[in-house]
């Protein structure tokens, strides 16, 4: 039985993916990743000398800053920062540059409509579902662009389980709000 999704996709169909790198000139590495209308920019600065207080100085450490869509940094942003930090730590080869900190800054941004003037970029709320996997993918692409040594590449996808037990891949915001369970799955593929 074909399940109807609001935008007409089949249950296993992802939204169109797009990625571009080296979009920010001052950052050591940067990338954007978009899934449908959800677009995230990630920038990597580092490795910089020194680690923070509670980090292990024998390994390279990561610091993730998640810029909120609007308003102050809240609990959801802190949680995403922690998840992203732990995911990135597990894919990087941390023993190569001990006692350094690499900063990854993630920002959700507005998908450019080709008819808009080119400088109306930046910052406005745009999150059309699957924000965390988009951010993980963007951060991984930014790390590759910066040349940070990685053990694997991280690939993340989001799926939601609806009331009737059907699983949909890559939900948009509308589907996320209606479903009973959303799961973000990150898989490492050997480089």
């Amino acid at each position, binding site marked *: 039985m074909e399940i109807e999704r609001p935008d007409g996709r089949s249950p296993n169909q992802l939204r169109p993916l797009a990625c571009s790198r080296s979009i920010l000139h001052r950052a050591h590495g940067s990338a954007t990743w978009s899934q449908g209308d959800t677009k995230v920019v990630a920038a990597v600065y580092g490795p910089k000398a020194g680690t923070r207080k*509670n980090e292990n100085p024998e390994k390279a450490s990561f610091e993730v800053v998640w810029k909120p869509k609007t308003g102050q940094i*809240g*609990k*959801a942003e*802190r*949680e995403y920062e*922690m*998840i992203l*930090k*732990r*995911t*990135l*730590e*597990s894919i990087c080869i941390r*023993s190569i540059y001990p006692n350094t900190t690499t900063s990854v800054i993630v920002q959700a941004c507005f998908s450019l409509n080709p008819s808009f003037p080119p400088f109306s970029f930046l910052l406005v709320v745009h999150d059309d579902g699957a924000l965390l996997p988009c951010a993980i993918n963007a951060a991984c692409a930014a790390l590759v662009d910066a040349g940070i040594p990685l053990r694997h590449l991280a690939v993340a996808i989001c799926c939601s389980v609806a009331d009737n037990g059907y699983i949909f891949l890559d939900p948009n915001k509308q589907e996320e709000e209606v479903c009973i369970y959303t799961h973000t799955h*990150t898989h*490492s593929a050997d480089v």
Partner: protein
Amino acid sequence: MGFPDASKDLSSEMEVDAFRRLFPLKYFERHLAEAIRPDGRPLGKARDTTVVLGAVASANGSALVKIGSTTMLTAIKMEVMTPSLESPDEGCIAIDFHMPPICSPIVRPGRPAEAAPVISKQLSDTISSSGSIDLKELSLVTGKAAWMAYLDVYCLDADGALFDAALLSAVAALSHLQIPAVAMNDDGKIVLLSEDDGQKKAQEPVNKEKRNLTLRSIPFSLTCILHKNYILVDPTAEEESVMETVVTIALDTSGQLVSLYKPGGPVLAFTSAIQDCVALTRQRVKELKGILEEANSTMQVE
């Protein structure tokens, strides 16, 4: 990297405490090879858990929970508020988790701990998605007045498995919660009923006497560490700092999965590992349910 052979030579000459500090991973792995942990527990056993209800006399509901050394104190305060327009017949619960500097040398005054907002969000997500509380029970007058419950969880001692202890104490406090009796006075405001007041305008059942919140299926959780092929249940802070892959599973009393949380970590989550963790969580849920029921019945006797 590291000194793989040096530690073997040194371990026979060094004191145990020094070896534990200098080569923590090797220290733990030597224990895991014998299927035991430094504190003498087998891999699948959680620490001793105690629940004390009514620890804070001035709060409407409270609980003090200890899992091993990890201590959490929860208190619930109720206030009357106007419900939102989208859900005029529902009350609200605001859950917040605090890690004051008393709990751990890692937490400095003035700088909130990194783990605090994460656990706070996890707690509110777990409790709201488990469906154990019907917010309509917190309603007083549809569209005009409803209860707002402020649930604050304070970590007094952070020794690993913070989420488990926090969830248990939040749930214990909710089971102990007594909603005060109120009445509406002539101005249309809700006032607390004291013992001798004459009745003003009668309300719904809330008015008559204090009542408890009915909890449907209660969520309990278990945190496990995955390290190579081992699964360590209920880690201490030392174990968590050495072995980085942590999995937290929350089940409710009817056996349904409420949440599965694995934030990164070098060890991959194979299906078999997750299934083992879920089985261990099931056992733990039975234990915790027994402990909570015992604490509740002790309260009722008093």
